[in-house]
């Protein structure tokens, strides 16, 4: 009996330990943090954006510093529209610079050019930091690299890290990882960074079909199982942006950024023709875009339920530590489509 009691005691202790482990988040008691990307080219937070940062106790803002693009007319990679600042930074919020590098940079470069590209990039980042009195602990690269460009992209990151060491900068590096790069990491390689961010959007093609380019659950589910095996710690980036796709004669004309369904819904110049579909009944200007009569608009925006669904799917499939959910992107238009508590609600699924 005694033995039995002991066994029961051990079992109980074990049970409670397990219970503790399973109910607390897998990275201690710390809650999964809410963060945002800021992607406009001028840093000037609007009132509801500041409120969103405050309400969600945001301590990190991923600030888009600039793009790097390959310019064929110059035969070299150049930075595009470095961010400017019209406001002082919020003291309590750490800035993480994000640099989007178009894959064409690596498609058109040679290994021996990576050192110069890294040096130029660091030089520009330091100038931006200095101009806005920003001290950084982390820097993020965003690139949809492929099997063919992986070796150059990774060589670039290695060179960049060398510059950090040479300049005595204790800066951690992170990189965005697309779903296909998670699933086929043995082919696409794993970037030599300290941390990855799983980009849980831009899954489909921008086209005329009814499938959404931002998020398509069946597509996503085919890939997320691979999260568990990914060799880097992963944060998760979720889409709160919207865009509309401007269609003409069955072809894509352009992306109508900073527009959502509200723009068409309350405008008599458009006729609703279906779910998230509108047609221009005349030729006219709207929000700086020109529509010809019979042009179509396909709206893509994520509802709250979809965000919750993403969180459920991801938390069920990624059993690794998720320290933060980064929402793309912090913009008054985007924020205004959601209830104030949705961001925390989504993050809560991960602990």
């Amino acid at each position, binding site marked *: 009996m005694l033995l039995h009691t002991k066994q029961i005691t051990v079992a109980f202790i074990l049970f409670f330990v397990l219970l503790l482990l399973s109910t607390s988040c897998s990275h201690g008691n710390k809650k999964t943090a809410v963060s945002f990307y800021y992607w406009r080219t001028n840093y000037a937070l609007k009132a509801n954006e500041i409120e969103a940062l405050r309400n969600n106790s945001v301590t990190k803002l991923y600030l888009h510093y600039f793009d790097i693009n390959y310019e064929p*007319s110059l035969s070299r990679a*150049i*930075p595009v529209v*470095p961010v*400017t600042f019209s406001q002082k930074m919020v003291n309590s919020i750490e800035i993480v610079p994000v640099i989007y590098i178009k894959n064409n940079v690596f498609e058109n470069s040679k290994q021996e050019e990576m050192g110069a590209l890294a040096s*130029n990039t660091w*030089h*520009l980042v330091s*100038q*931006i930091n200095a*101009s806005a009195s920003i001290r950084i602990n982390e820097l993020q690269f965003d690139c949809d690299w492929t099997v063919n460009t992986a070796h150059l992209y990774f060589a670039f990151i290695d060179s960049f890290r060398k510059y950090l060491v040479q300049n005595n900068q204790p800066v951690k590096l992170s990189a965005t990882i697309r779903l296909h790069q998670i699933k086929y990491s043995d082919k696409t390689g794993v970037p030599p960074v300290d941390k990855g961010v799983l980009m849980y959007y831009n899954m489909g093609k921008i086209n005329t079909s009814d499938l959404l380019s931002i998020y398509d659950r069946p597509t996503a589910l085919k890939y997320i199982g691979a999260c568990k095996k990914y060799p880097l710690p992963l944060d998760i980036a979720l889409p709160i942006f919207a865009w509309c796709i401007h269609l003409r*004669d069955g*072809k*894509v004309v352009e992306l109508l950024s900073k527009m959502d369904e509200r723009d068409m819904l309350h405008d008599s*110049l458009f006729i609703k023709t279906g779910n998230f579909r509108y047609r221009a009944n005349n*030729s*006219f*200007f*709207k*929000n*700086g875009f*020109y529509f*010809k009569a019979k042009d179509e608009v396909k709206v893509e925006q994520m509802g709250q339920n979809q965000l919750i669904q993403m969180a459920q799917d991801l938390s069920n499939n990624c059993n690794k530590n998720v320290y933060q959910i980064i929402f793309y992107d912090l913009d008054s238009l985007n924020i205004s489509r959601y209830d104030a508590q949705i961001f925390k609600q989504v993050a809560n699924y991960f602990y």
Partner: protein
Amino acid sequence: MMRRFSNKSLIIFISIIVAGAGIVWACADGGWDDGGNSSFTPESFVDTAYAPFFYSDQFYYGIGHDEAHVQRFNDDVVNEWQGYLGISKSDTELHYFLLQARKGIVDSVSQYFENASNPLPKEVTHFSMVQNRDSKKLKAFFTFLVYAKANEAYAAVVSYYWDYDTSKKQTLSDADKLIRIGLESQFSKTKDKFIKQRYWFQIIRSYFFGADYNTCIDWFEKYKDDFTQNVMYYRAMSYEAGAYYKQKKYSQANYLYSKVYDAGAAFKTVAHYSFHPQNESDWNATLQLCSNNQEKATLWQLLGIYFDEQRSIKEIYQLDPKSEKLELLLSRLINIEENRVSGYDRYGYDVSTHITSKDSAKLQTLQLVERIANAQNTSKPYMWQLAAGYLHFLYEDNAKASQYYTLAKTTLPQTNLLQAQYRLLLFINQLASFKTLDAAAESKLLPDLEWLQTLNTEKMGLHNFRYTTAYSWAKLNMSAKYKKQNEWLKAECFAHQDTFYTDKKQTANMKAFLQKANPSSFEQYCQNIYPVKTTDINEFQAIQLAFEDRINEAITLMKEGTGSATQLLGNPFNGRIRDCHDCDHEAAQKIKYTKLSFLEKLKEMQDKIAVNQDVYANNLLLANAFYNISYYGNARYFYECQVIGGEFLLYSFSPNMFDNMLVDNHLAMGYYKKALAAAQTDEQKAKCTFMIAKCTQNEMYNAAFKKNKDFDFGYAYLGPVDFSAMQNFKNTKYYQDVIDECGYFREYLHLKK
């Protein structure tokens, strides 16, 4: 019958030229330009001031992106000051002060003009401009320049891509604002209109960069009537427009941008780039601001360039059928339509190449252009008639096209480019209308074909003339028609077929055709355009004969062949355990063989064998030679020629072409076997045995390639080679050498163990 540009082979042909991949057959029809696949040259009809807006895959045709923001008006600035100061155009001093001198130097010179006791900077002491201190104009110039140089610090910054400090938006410092007070004081004091206007401009610009938009606008409005409407005036107006734009007053901003756009060629791109209506309300308000139809036409032209040529043409035509603003839009409309119809899609989206009779875009375009062409009330009726004709050609109605061309001829001006454009359109329409190509058709087409073949656009004053696509299309169209008529030689002359020379009879026929004693004019033209000449065919036939071991005949033809003197890179008689072409090419060679001398050496060896002289050695060398001229050997140069092509890898050959011949090692194998039979020592036998195994291995590759054209030669592994015959020569040095050099052999031994 192939009539439209939508023909698939044309698209492929275009791609080949663009990619530069048609090594043998992409004959030089002329350059490739921004016109893409166009045959309708906007320069024929439209004022060149509008050239940046010609339809192309660049943002601005011929420019790309406009990056001339800092230096755009440099020449105007220098010229205007030269006129004002009465300085000769060749004088470099003014140019130096205006565009190069540092602010410090200008400051010192200005102070010197104020008071001679102030020293002149050493850089300019010898300048004649500083010798005349009494000149009021010069003094005023240097006073002004001090302010202008100070303002350049924020208004004329040359940005460097990777430098944040110059690439970001410039703002005014407090010191800059103090300078503005000085500028305003100078403006009040100055009576001279020339100088006063320049202070006015500087002040307006300073308020713009200082983000004081209301004052910027006020300054322009208050004094605008005091000055002539020159370049400086419209530069100032640009800042007023920018100020309205910054205030989100889009209707005023866009109205002013349109006025600036109309002010001259130099303003066009920058004003167009700034023009951005936001919503229908501000666009309508912009139209309301116009004081006449010409201003409205400018606004519609800007809208047309950006978004909607058809709508703008209709609106402008209604305002003023004679408006020159219509011409650019019509050229864009036609260039866009020909691009759509041709199916060559420069933006990478899928474009249907099939234009049906119910195609709504086609009907709209045609209806609009025909309506205006028929009314004959524009300032260039012939442009509308040619456009209508060309649309009918694109839509395969040659009779209607012809009617419009006939109409156009009556008013067509005698300029080189227009006449050439007219002739080209007429030619392709005539060709398209011929169902078959008989002698009568050929004689009608020949003058135009010869004209296109020898066209030198620069010499003939036809700069920018777009004819290459039409000529390429014409050749493909004719080739296809000849094929239908079973005229294979002409079909081949107009468009090469990969398989043509795989047929020996056709090869001989072509040679006879090219050598024809009294060719007709048309046949002569065919001979001229055909990139393969008789000597090329001789060389090709010699190569074919060599691969059949018919060396005597090969020598005869090679002597009359194009590449007879072409040197082979390595010694073609080498036989290596492990092939290394680069090693052979780099190795010192006492004798460098040409294609011809190589063949002659083969004959010499064969003659020796015939009289039993050095039978082993000669057979071995012949075997090595036949090995080396195959795809696997060190002398691929031997078979590279105009007909077969050059620098190809095997997998780039078309099926059924020459691949079987080039990869085949059976001749080499045969000679190795003969050498083996004549071998006397084990060393000799070991060598022949191993080389036979090498040929056997190549046959395995060939078989794999025949089975699967995607077979990768570089990486594929086909399993162990049978080296069992080598077991008889274990005691030879050669056997040890093979172990050292040949991985396959080591692997084989390991497997056996």
